[in-house]
């Protein structure tokens, strides 16, 4: 059981780190939103899952499920809202001009 919790924690940390590197290195706001929304949600979900596995308790599990559901529902909504707002502005999308 401890090994399973450790593996969940480590994979969750890895995906959070991937999201952070993505937000730092990606050239465009849309790509940054993409990195944060997908990798970040997966990483935080795994870390919360390891909390639920560590305390085998219905009170903790219900709270963890509540946080996970809330994050899974609200994060794509916020990202969609931000993308739509930026699409209306004059923000230009990134084009790869290095291999022309």
């Amino acid at each position: 059981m401890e090994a399973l919790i450790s593996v969940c924690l480590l994979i969750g940390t890895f995906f959070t780190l991937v999201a952070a590197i993505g937000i730092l290195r990606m050239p465009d706001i849309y790509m940054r939103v993409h990195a944060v929304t997908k990798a970040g949600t997966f990483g935080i979900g795994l870390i919360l899952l390891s909390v639920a596995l560590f305390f085998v308790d219905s009170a903790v599990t219900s709270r963890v499920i509540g946080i996970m559901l809330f994050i899974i529902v609200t994060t794509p909504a916020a990202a969609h809202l931000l993308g739509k707002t930026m699409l209306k502005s004059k923000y230009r999308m990134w084009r790869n001009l290095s291999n022309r």
Partner: protein
Amino acid sequence: MSDLFSVTITIVYGGLLISFLCAFIRLLMGPTHADRLVALDLIGFITISFIATHAISSGETAFLDIATTLALVAFLGTVAFVKFIGERLSQTGDTKGEEPWKH
């Protein structure tokens, strides 16, 4: 708390700290407001992860309530700030302060 566990939790704290630093650099230098907003969103996620890891390492379950509140506040802040950006864009009619990405 066994040996494997303490090593894992140390690694997790380190990885989350590096992620926090990356997001903070983007928060400081992000060219538009939207970049800063996305970085702030990720910082909220990382803080929730920190709280969850601390709940494991200390054995205290009350921290999860704080994580719930933080998730709520982060979403509300994101929506409010997106509304602010959109209204400012529609008022001024151009992208003042929102520099387009330069090639």
